[in-house]
Every structure is written in structure tokens, then in C-alpha cells.
């Protein structure tokens, strides 16, 4: 009995191994990898992103110019960590390069993971291989930020990384400008969650707020493992702050943070509180009574804006709902399709090799652009061929009303 099971398992293993490798060598059939954390806290957002990308590709008939394109999904998280994992990212980078038919990667979700993968893809002997992210907002990947950045991610000397969302410099700056100019607040407490994203966005908020003429009265980190932040907010209250900025992601105990802030400082109508897009797209937060009136910002266009704006974006969101039965988890999933759009455009303009695809987007003199009508998000943009950043630097300011993220204003960074 046991023996027959063993033989059966072997046979299945063999069959799978064979079945797993259709296509490949033909030059016109190309693969684009998606590299997302499919397990843990970001799993829902990642699944929605993969769905949106599949839907977009389906709408294009699986074609980019004369090339047939299919998708291969990679998971950069592990169950043990419940989040992206450094070793898994390193392994994925190797796998992207090893898969001969793969010409570009859509991802990653986390900037830290991109910082591992980009240098490896950059040194690909048949490349460099292109990566376009829909969600990495850490500035250092494309522009000068920490020492050695961004050059240290491109050891081959040429760029191979682009993104379709503005980096944190713009979002933090826009949030600070809005807080000072529109909300007329002058004394802000700036908190961060001690992680790459949180520190970056808090820094750019604090810098810009001071530049605008405001005062940063408290600037410190919140510890995600703490069970209560009452003391922290007492301190902020004592410092005479009239606004507070949560630079970080909701996963880092954001729920307790918001609740304690409301308990100590008062509700969001009486005391101005703002959080960046690390807090958007969380049903837990949306359903929380204390979140009512909380200001949020989103780098780029929000889901709400896309639906209300109608056009191609509104249609795409509607199609998504028809096909999968639910709304996309966050606008990042639509930005995933937007990144795919850029990749497909680069593939169509290339000779079908990795090097060609990268060169079609980066390093040249004329940028690849999508018009308002073309762009899946409803907002046209160009990718700067030198840095890989987008030229559209508008940030959507939102507020939580009735458990929904509602747009207040689209803020263009000054």
C-alpha cells in the first residue's frame, strides 16, 4: 500500500514537472513574472493585484505588439514570516533570471524586497532585466536618498527599474503642504513606525512642514509591539500640538494607535490627524468608529477617484467586479495593471529580448508615456528614462466618511 502511494506520488511529481514547462524557447512567446507577497497581511492586496493584471492582459488578448505574453506568479513571502522574506526575494531574483522566457518582472510590493532583487536582475548577463513596481515608494531606489543610493542597486551601471507610483518624497511633502495650507495647522507631531517606508515618509513630512513655516513639536517612532500609546499621546498633548501625522503602515499596530490618539487627543473632527497610504485599503480601519474623519493620502489616484472619474479606469474597476465578484482590495491592484501596461508597452517596442525590453523603457532619450485615455488609472503619465520615476506627482487627499475612503482633493506638489 505504502509503496504504491510512493510510486503514485513519484509519477505525479514527474507529470507535474513535465507539465510545468510548456513553451519557452520560441522567441515570440514571452513571460512576465509578478513578484508579490502572497501570504500574510498583504495577501489580499497581492491576490487582487494578480487578478487585475490577469484581467488587463486578457483584455489585450494576451498580446504586446507581435509578442504573446503570459504571466508567471512568484511569491516573495513565507508562511513562517507572514510577510516578504529576504531569502525568498533573493531566490525569486535568481528564478526570474533562470526562466529563459521571462523578459520583465512586475513587482515588488515591498521596497526592501526590491532592493534585493534589483541588483541581481541588473547583473543578468542577458539583461539587464526590467522590473516595474506598482507599489515601491522608497525614494532610494531611483533617486539620491541614503548614502550610496541609488547607484548601489545598479552595479551594472545601467538602470533597469521603474515605478508607476510617485515616491514618498512627494506624498510626505503633499501631506505637509495640505496640513499647513488647507487645514491651517502649525504645530504637528510626526510619528513613524521605525520601518523603511514609515521613516521615509515621516522625514519628508517633517522637512516640508518646517519649510512651510510650521513647527514639528514631537518627532519620534512608535513601537509596534506596545499595547498602549496613551503615554505617547499625553506627551504630544502636553507639547501643544494641533495635528498628528502617522508615518507608517497600519499593520504595525495602527489600530491601537488610532484608537489611543482619539481617546487622548479627541476625535478627528476636533483634532486633525493624518495618515499616508500605508493606512489605506484596510477594512479593519475603515470599520473602526475612531477612524471617522481621519485624513488619508494616496500617492496617485485613489480607487474612489477612479470609480467616480469613470472613463477607462471606472470601466476597468467595474469589469473587475464582474469577473471576480468583489471590488479590488486597494488601488494598488489597479496600479499593478498600470505597471503591466508599461511593461507591455516596452515589450511591444522591443526586439523581444530582456536587454531590448529594458532599453525600450530606460536609458533612452524619449520617455515612454501613456495618455489619459490610454492609462488604466485614468491619469496619463510618463516614465523618466533616466530615473524610472513617474512624472505625475499628484497626491490624493482623502477622508474617512461612513467607513469609506472618500476623496477630498487632488493635491499637486508645489
Amino acid at each position, binding site marked *: 500500500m505504502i509503496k504504491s502511494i510512493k510510486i503514485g506520488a513519484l509519477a*505525479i511529481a514527474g507529470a507535474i*514537472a513535465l507539465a510545468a514547462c510548456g513553451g519557452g524557447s520560441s522567441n515570440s512567446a514571452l513571460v512576465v513574472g509578478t513578484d508579490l507577497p502572497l501570504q500574510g497581511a498583504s495577501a489580499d492586496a497581492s491576490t487582487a493585484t494578480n487578478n487585475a493584471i490577469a484581467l488587463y492582459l486578457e483584455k489585450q488578448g494576451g498580446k504586446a505588439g507581435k509578442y504573446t505574453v503570459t504571466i508567471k506568479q512568484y511569491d516573495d513571502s513565507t508562511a513562517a514570516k507572514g510577510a516578504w522574506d529576504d531569502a525568498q526575494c*533573493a531566490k525569486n531574483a535568481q528564478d526570474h533570471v533562470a526562466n529563459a522566457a521571462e523578459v520583465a518582472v512586475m513587482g515588488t510590493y515591498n521596497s526592501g524586497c526590491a532592493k534585493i532583487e534589483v541588483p541581481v536582475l541588473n547583473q543578468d548577463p542577458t539583461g539587464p532585466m526590467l522590473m516595474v513596481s506598482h507599489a515601491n515608494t522608497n525614494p532610494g531606489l531611483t533617486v539620491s536618498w*541614503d548614502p*550610496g543610493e541609488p547607484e548601489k542597486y545598479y552595479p551594472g551601471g545601467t538602470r533597469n527599474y521603474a515605478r508607476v507610483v510617485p515616491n514618498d518624497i512627494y506624498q510626505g511633502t503633499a501631506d505637509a503642504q495640505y496640513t499647513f495650507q488647507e487645514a491651517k495647522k502649525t504645530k504637528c507631531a510626526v510619528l513613524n513606525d521605525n520601518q523603511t517606508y514609515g521613516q521615509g515618509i515621516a522625514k519628508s513630512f517633517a522637512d516640508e512642514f518646517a519649510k512651510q513655516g510650521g513647527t514639528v513639536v514631537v518627532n519620534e517612532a512608535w513601537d509596534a509591539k506596545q499595547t498602549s500609546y496613551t503615554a505617547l499621546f499625553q506627551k504630544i498633548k502636553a507639547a501643544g500640538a494641533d495635528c498628528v501625522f502617522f508615518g507608517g503602515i497600519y499593520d504595525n499596530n495602527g489600530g491601537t494607535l488610532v484608537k489611543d490618539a482619539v481617546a487622548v487627543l479627541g476625535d478627528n473632527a476636533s483634532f486633525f490627524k493624518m495618515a499616508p497610504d500605508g493606512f489605506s485599503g484596510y477594512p479593519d480601519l475603515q470599520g473602526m468608529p475612531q477612524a471617522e474623519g481621519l485624513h488619508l493620502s494616496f500617492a496617485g489616484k485613489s480607487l474612489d477617484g477612479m470609480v467616480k472619474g469613470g472613463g477607462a479606469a471606472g470601466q476597468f474597476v467595474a469589469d473587475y467586479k464582474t469577473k471576480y465578484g468583489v471590488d479590488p482590495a486597494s488601488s494598488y491592484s489597479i496600479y499593478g495593471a498600470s505597471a503591466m501596461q508599461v511593461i507591455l508597452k516596452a515589450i511591444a517596442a522591443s526586439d523581444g529580448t530582456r536587454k531590448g525590453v529594458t532599453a525600450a523603457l530606460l536609458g533612452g532619450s524619449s520617455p515612454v508615456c501613456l495618455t489619459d485615455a490610454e492609462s488604466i488609472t485614468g491619469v496619463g503619465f510618463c516614465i523618466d528614462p533616466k530615473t524610472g520615476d513617474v512624472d505625475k506627482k499628484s497626491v490624493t487627499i482623502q477622508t474617512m466618511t461612513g467607513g469609506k475612503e472618500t476623496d477630498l482633493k487632488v493635491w499637486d506638489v508645489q
Partner: protein
Amino acid sequence: MAEETKAAAPAHTSSSNTKWAIGFITVVLAIYAINKFYLPTAPVQVKTFFNSWFSLTSMGEIMIYILMALGLNIVVGYAGLLDLGYVAFWALGGYVAGWLMSGHFDQWTVNFFGNPPAGLPNGIHLNFLLVLVLGGVFTAIWGVIIGAPTLRLKSDYLALVTLGFGEIIPQVMVNGEDIGGFNLTNGTKGINPVDNIKLFGYEFGPFALADKFLIYAALAGLMIILSLRLRDGRLGRAWLAIREDELAASMMGVPLMRTKLASYAVGATAGGVGGVAFATLIGGVYAERFNFQVSIIILSMVVLGGMGNVWGVLVGATLLAWVNNTGLVQFGNIINSATGKNIDFPSFNFLIFGVLLILMMLFRREGFLPEARVRLIMHEEEFSEVAVVTDDIEVEGVHHHEHN
């Protein structure tokens, strides 16, 4: 009975050691040869098969896990000191690589046979071999610093304190971005990229995985030899004596503190070297990796494989590391595509580990490949229960007497 085993054991172990060593070397060389010479020209199907079931990144990771599990085996298996915070040494080793092989300290420019990336000379760039040694020495020192106050405790208390250190050191790394204005660890952003290994004029870039695998296998091999030689030596026998009966060992003249500290230092060194190797494997150091679960997984490798037996630990480490990074996902894919379901197998990781551990404790407490001595101890049930009862009575009596 005891006499017999003692006399028979050395002859038996040395011949089986040779067999195991040949087996290990053969497997390593086979993996190297397949990846280096066969796979580049192999049909796509074969390539895909190897890449998904036995990818070189995971093979390299397995070698590093073997190295670290053997290090922990010195502490837990040989000296019998339960250590729940082994990940601290991995972290320290990893950061040594981050500090000495990257552009992290960009305020200094040091290059000692190192390999700074083109155009970015800033930072400290030392040679990989030197960093291995420094990483080992640095963690050994920390092993002694942590061990000196800790090892005065016994059993549960010792385990708790090691657990504490295992939590403290990674937290220091997470928060070490601004120590009085000095950026020691770069916080959760981690240190990356770590330089490519360069030895004797050859650079092992991100795609020289087969060669890098060989380097990691050599490190694991070195640790195997070290473990085997130490065990038979004076120090090793002292460790075993402490493991089996601390009081008796000290009565026989074994200096308890010094011997325990030595086991801590050797174990820590292996963790540090493993940390350096791992940093070069993935090309960076990230504070979030160093969590409690890693300590537990390495401990499980030692316990499942067979505490105290080098080859048992090797099997345990290989098996668990492979299941963790490849096996579970791949078997899950097979089962899912055969049954048409969509079960997330990797998320049952700890359930499977837990059940496996419980089953092992019920039916094979000594591990897959136990050390002969451990097996003897574990299978003394018939006597031991009686012995324990009488022990208790005696102890009670003594205490009673003392109190009076």
C-alpha cells in the same frame, strides 16, 4: 553492559563516520557537478525540475543551516545546555558581514583585498575569508559575554535567559539606526547590498551560485570535522560528562564554568560564520529575519535529527531546511493540482512541525539518527522510573534532614 558499549563504540563510530563523510562529499560534489556542467545545456524540462525542487539558492541555504545546526548541537547536544536564543549569533555574524563587506559605513573608505562594487569605493570592504574569521571571533566573544552571567543558571532558567538574549540582540539591530547620531545597523532598512565574494582573483557574482554553494558546503564540512574531532577530544568528553551529570563531572575535576563557556563560544562561532555566509548568499542583512522562530527551527533540526550526533543533526537540518524553503510549497502544488483544491500548504508549516515534534517525542525521542549514548539513556525506561522514584525519596529525605 556499559563497559561493552564503551569499548565497541569508537570502532563503530569511526567506520560509520568515514561512510557518512564520503556520502556527504559525494552528494555535495554531485550537486555541484550537475549544476555547473550538466544543467546549463540540459533540456528545459530537466532545468525546470531542478530549479523548482532543488534550486541552488535553497541548497546553499541548507548548507548554512547545517553549519548553524551543528553549532547549536555543540551547545545543546554535547554540553546539554538548552539555548533558545541562537538566532542572536546569526544576527551578530550577519551584521559583521554587513559592516565589513558593504558601503554601509560610507564615512570611511577601507579596502583590504575586498571587492567594492564598481564606482562605489566608500565603506569598509574586507576580504570574505577575513570577514568569516572576524565574524567567528566577534560572535565567540559575544558568546562568552552572554554566557558568563547566563551559565550560572540551570535548565529552565538558563533557557529563559538565552531566550531573552535572543530577543534583545535582534531588537538592538532594529533600533540601532541612531545611536547618539551614529548609524550602526540602518534599522529595519537593513544593510544591502553586501559585496560579492572575491577569492584569489575570482569574483563570485549573483549567478555563480554553484561555486558559492561549494564554498558554503566547505564551511559546513569544516564544522562537521570540527564537531567530530572536538567530541573525541578532552573538551568534548568533558561536555558529555556535564550533559549527563553535572555534579559527577565537577567531582571528577571538570571545570564547569570554563567548559560550558567553551561550548558557548564554539557554538556562537558557527552561528557567526553562518551569519556571514548567509549575508553573502542573499546579498544583504535584514533585522526582521532574526526572530524567535528561527531559533526554534534550528533547535528542531538538532532535536529531530538526533541530539549529539553530527550526522543526525546534518540529516535533520537538511530535511527541515528543505521542507521549509522548497518541499512544502512543491508538495502543496502537486496535491493542489491533483485534487483541484487551493490549499495554502506553507501556512500549515508550524502545524506540521508541531505534529512531527509530538510524534517524535512519543515514538522516537532520541531523533532520527541518535547518538549511541543518548539512545541508551532514552531507552532506560524500565529502570529509570524506579530510579526516579527512589531518587525523589532520597532527595526528600536529605532535604528534610538538612532543614532539621
